[in-house]
């Protein structure tokens, strides 16, 4: 099938490009290491008095960090804008290549990077004493990758619509922080005042983070797990559709 072939060949091309820039891959992988190395000891000391075991802290914060990491895929558009500018994307669009495969190959190749980053973060968390059930970890990874799919697609959609790095930067920066704070990533929403709790209900990432925390706890039956997946999958479909539409409307 032409769609699958195009998807594969384009995916291989994106991976080759990524592998040829080992510096960026290295920086991308440094990110989770820094998160944990700098953040976990802080939390450890904070909790020292309260006597919360390290395992519990990690369980609380690692899911949130994984989702933050996935949200980092919002920045996927930056190198893409350059490809729009030099005409690579227009060249593909003039060819009969499947449009959906163009978007999905880009999104997919970003998922490899995200998967490596997330795995590294979990591995280091293990060294800090994290214990999670295997199924919970696997499902959390799926959730994180789905968040990444939605974020990368959104980033490509914005890039295609604006073709401008500074526009992409200001849009992402404007939304990144409030969404992050309202998802209870860094601190649980349960300790927040009521209005923040209400606002969080409208934030799709709140469901992703809460869902992932349940999965880490092995609490698979919790409705938050289902809600988390439901919201994130809906978000993926919406964002991929947006990116596809922007691609079709892109004028060289």
């Amino acid at each position: 099938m032409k769609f699958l072939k195009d998807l594969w060949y384009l995916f291989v091309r994106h991976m080759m490009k990524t592998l040829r820039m080992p510096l960026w891959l290295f920086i991308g992988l440094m990110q989770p290491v820094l998160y944990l190395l700098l953040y976990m000891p802080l939390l450890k000391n904070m909790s020292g008095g309260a006597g919360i075991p390290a395992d519990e802290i990690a369980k609380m914060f690692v899911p949130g960090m994984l989702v933050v990491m996935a949200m980092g895929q919002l920045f996927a558009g930056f190198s893409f804008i350059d490809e729009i500018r030099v005409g690579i994307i227009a060249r593909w669009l003039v060819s009969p290549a499947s449009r959906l495969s163009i978007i999905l190959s880009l999104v997919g190749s970003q998922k490899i990077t995200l998967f490596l980053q997330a795995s590294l973060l979990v591995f280091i968390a293990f060294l800090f004493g994290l214990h999670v059930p295997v199924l919970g970890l696997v499902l959390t990874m799926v959730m994180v990758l789905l968040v990444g799919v939605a974020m990368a697609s959104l980033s490509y959609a914005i890039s295609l619509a604006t073709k401008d790095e500074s526009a992409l930067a200001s849009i992402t920066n404007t939304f990144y922080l409030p969404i992050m704070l309202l998802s209870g990533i860094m601190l649980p929403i349960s300790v927040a005042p009521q209005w923040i709790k209400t606002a969080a209900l409208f934030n799709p990432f709140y469901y992703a983070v809460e869902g992932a925390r349940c999965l880490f706890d092995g609490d698979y039956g919790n409705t938050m797990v289902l809600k988390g997946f439901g919201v994130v999958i809906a978000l993926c479909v919406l964002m991929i559709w947006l990116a596809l539409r922007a691609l079709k409307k892109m004028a060289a």
Partner: protein
Amino acid sequence: MDIILQTNKLTKTFAGKGRQKKKVEAVKGVDLQVHKGEIFGFLGPNGAGKTTTLNMLTTLLAPTSGEATVVGHDLLKNPQKVREHIGYVSQAGGADTSATAKENLVLQSRLYGIPSAEAFKKAEMLIDRFQMKEFGDRKARTYSGGQRRRLDLALGIVHKPVLVFLDEPTTGLDPQSRAYFWEEIKRLKNDGMTVFLTTHYLEEADNLCDRVAIIDHGEIVAVDTTQQLKKQIGAESITVGFSNDAATEKAKAALSGQKFIEKLFPQENKLHLYVQDGGSLMPEVLRILDKENIQVQTIGLSKPSLDDVFLQKTGRSLREAGV
């Protein structure tokens, strides 16, 4: 004559951006016919609407109105069929600079549905044909302008399109590279492809194109073979320069009635006179002006060029419209 591309009132108006929301009428009702097997040139200054027209014809940009048939398929109803049969080398080129020429070519073949074994063979062949052996295994990031342009052109024809669009194929190249590309473009024609190229170089339109459409401000002002276009102008052109507007006006009045002048065209402080036998008529022109006591600053004689055509149709010189 087989028609390979035909447009009917093709129009593109860009919605204005910014506060004033001023609309840009980039292409205004263009009617074109391109014949199978020819090199068709789209000549016009920067901002004339050449790229916008090409983007529409290559399915990248939706026309505001109008229609087109490209290689026998309706552009709007059947863009996928159009894509299969055309090639497009955009002004930006679009080679992937993170990959080698070979990788670029192989991927391009595959996107056109060419099987792997054949894709590799084609890549080798094109690397050979466009003399890219020396650098074909290096990443395209390291290529010189001319080398990069060779790869761009090769990418545009991997699938042997019947119609290939080249947007300003030689802009920014040194004269030697330009000559090389002219030869390669002629070779495309010899291979049976129809070439539709845009340019703002008069020499390029003149040397390379079988027929030329002159476009200005989104409108076609003339279409014909280069010979016919120049023939309409007259056999030769005498250009007389004056020191001020008053003198130009006076000279215009004095020369207007002369039978030997086929066309007379003022441009700033110059008069362009189109005549049959310029060499013997130059003294005559000077005599008339002398009689009227009009000071002549410069006088020159030239064969009419496409620039003269452009000048007559638009009132500006393409050379001076500059780029």
